[in-house]
């Protein structure tokens, strides 16, 4: 229904926060600019306390931003109450109205808006069919299991035909593991069928990456990267994205960059910074490479000499812990691929070796 546009959004829970430059800790959100297209599936991913729930509550209107604007399409909703925005929200702990039946729970948001009972009835049955809740309509909501209750919370959002976006705040936290997967695929299916914008907050990368077309990674109240799962994996903009996404995370090694922009680790040249220097912080002081792009050198090939410390079998791959000096490097080796004994030489795929300056990626020649 509408593009969601966040403009220079800042929020502090303090009544009189100090300016951000002096005291960044006073701010839960520090200047956010995001645009979300209608009908997309988005995830907000980040560790606890990074501001993702704050952002969600700002969008739904449960909180008012300290600074900045929120636009739905061309309509400025910054000052509107949650009930006046076309937003639904599903919380971490399922919220159902205990004394009401499942039917009445689903009808509640419609009745509050004064919709005629005949339309309510039609709409509730549609949504119940969508969520496989039809047989339960007459039962009391209090008796349902956690996943059933979470479906009702979701249903109360879907039932409103004017909803522009549904927000999910870690909705699978209290769901049993074997039902998590089912509810997650149900969400994905619903998104495809209903086509409503969904914004999903989580600290679980699997949930984010499987659910969303676009993932926004947050850290300390800021967006560090917004992109498709593939982008986040292949080209992490920040070392945080590198080690937070992926299992195991990206290898990060200190490096030295010379005047020509050649980045070396352990005396081995690994990447060439574009234009000799680059990026925000200067030349680059860290090299990042995912374990997926680290392999053992063929005979006679040059590379980084390492000692193999441990090999763990994780099914289709083996994770090799290799040590170079004091640094541990993880490599993912396919099952059945040959593995040297004790000592070996590692090669990093140059197309997937990134250089970071003070945490942020700098452009390199190969990548």
């Amino acid at each position, binding site marked *: 229904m509408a593009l969601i546009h966040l403009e220079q959004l800042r929020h502090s829970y303090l009544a009189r926060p100090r300016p951000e430059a002096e005291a960044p800790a006073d701010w839960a959100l520090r200047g956010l600019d995001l645009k979300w297209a209608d009908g997309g599936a988005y995830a907000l991913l980040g560790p606890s306390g990074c501001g993702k729930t704050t952002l969600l*509550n700002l969008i*739904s*209107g*449960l909180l008012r931003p300290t600074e900045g604007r929120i636009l739905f399409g061309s309509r400025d909703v910054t000052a509107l*109450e*949650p*009930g006046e925005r076309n*937003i*639904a*929200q599903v*919380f*971490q*702990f399922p*919220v159902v*109205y*205990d*004394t*009401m039946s499942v039917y009445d729970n689903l009808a*509640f*948001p419609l009745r*509050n*808006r004064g919709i005629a009972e005949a339309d309510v009835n039609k709409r509730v049955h549609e949504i119940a069919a969508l969520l496989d809740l039809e047989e339960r309509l007459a039962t009391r909501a209090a008796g349902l299991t956690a996943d059933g209750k979470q479906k009702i*919370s979701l249903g*109360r*959002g879907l039932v409103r035909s004017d909803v522009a976006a549904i927000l999910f705040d870690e909705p699978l936290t209290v769901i049993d593991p074997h039902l998590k997967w089912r509810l997650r695929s149900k969400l994905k299916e619903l998104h495809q069928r209903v086509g409503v914008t969904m914004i999903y907050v989580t600290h679980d990368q699997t949930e984010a990456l499987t659910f969303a077309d676009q993932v926004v990674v947050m850290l300390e109240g800021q967006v560090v990267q917004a992109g498709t799962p593939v982008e986040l994996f292949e080209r992490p903009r920040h070392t945080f994205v590198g080690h937070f996404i992926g299992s195991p995370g990206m290898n990060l090694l200190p490096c030295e960059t010379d005047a020509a922009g050649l980045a070396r680790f352990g005396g081995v040249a690994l990447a060439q910074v574009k234009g000799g220097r680059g990026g925000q912080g200067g030349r680059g002081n860290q090299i990042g490479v995912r374990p997926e792009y680290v392999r053992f050198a063929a005979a006679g090939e040059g590379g980084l000499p390492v000692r193999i410390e441990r090999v763990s079998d994780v099914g289709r791959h083996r994770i090799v812990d290799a040590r170079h000096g004091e640094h541990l490097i993880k490599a993912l080796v396919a099952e059945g691929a040959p593995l040297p004994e004790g000592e070996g030489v590692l090669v990093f795929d140059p197309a997937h070796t990134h250089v970071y300056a003070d945490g942020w990626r700098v452009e390199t020649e190969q990548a």
Partner: protein
Amino acid sequence: MNTRTPNQKAWWLVMPVVALVAFNAVIPLMAVVNYSVQETFGNNQFFFEGVRWFQEVMQSARFREALQRQLLFTAIILAIQIPLGVAIALAMPRKGIGVSVCLVLMAMPLLIPYNVVGAMWNIFALPDIGLMGRGLNALGWEFNYTRQPFAAWVTLVAMDVWHWTSLVVLLTYAGLSAIPDAYYQAARIDGASRWAIFRHIQLPKLKHVLLIAVLLRFMDSFMIYTEAVVLTGGGPGNATTLLSIDLVKIALGQFDLGPAAAMSLIYFLIILLLSWLFYTVMTKDEQK
């Protein structure tokens, strides 16, 4: 499975409690049972009378009237204190310095000894020197609780509301604080009105504390004695002679130990029965 318990020493650990309960409840109660079936004369002479005292109490108009007054009193104060207590709790602040201020103010009446409460209201409502009594007379109501039964009832009810509504407030406030924020947030998103929030979130979640509040207020008000005696002494006439006041008159005023004991037991059984009925009806759904 081995069903024999080889060591019974644990019973010794329960003995102090058993002894305590025996001395403060069971033995006095059995003494009352003893009195209730006997006629007592001087020199500690007792004659067995069977159920005669029970029949006498049950058939007496005096007992019936006291019981009616008692039921009326309890009904009135429950009808006032429960809604009023809930309303005050809803209006109390949720955070900030106001919370402590309100809680202390609310707890104050509960800390005052019963006879002091009675004495305070006795003076407060006096038509010649009491603030309330003089105020009401100044407003044109010829108010005199020592002579008018209605005025006595008004004062009695006002005193109990002042003394005990705080208990309902504190229980309700605790219950409200236990409702997770997500419920209110969901309700705001669902566009629920203030009344819908109260009706569908707060009231259902308060069910258990309100059950306790009603039970406590029912039992306490049914047993009210000290405050009422200090305030009105049961008068004017017998207008405010509640069950407990009547009981004391029979037992200690007239020294009719048999009827008084029988009345005590009937009184006790009425409280037990009504509490049990109320509790059973209110928790019926959950036992399914």
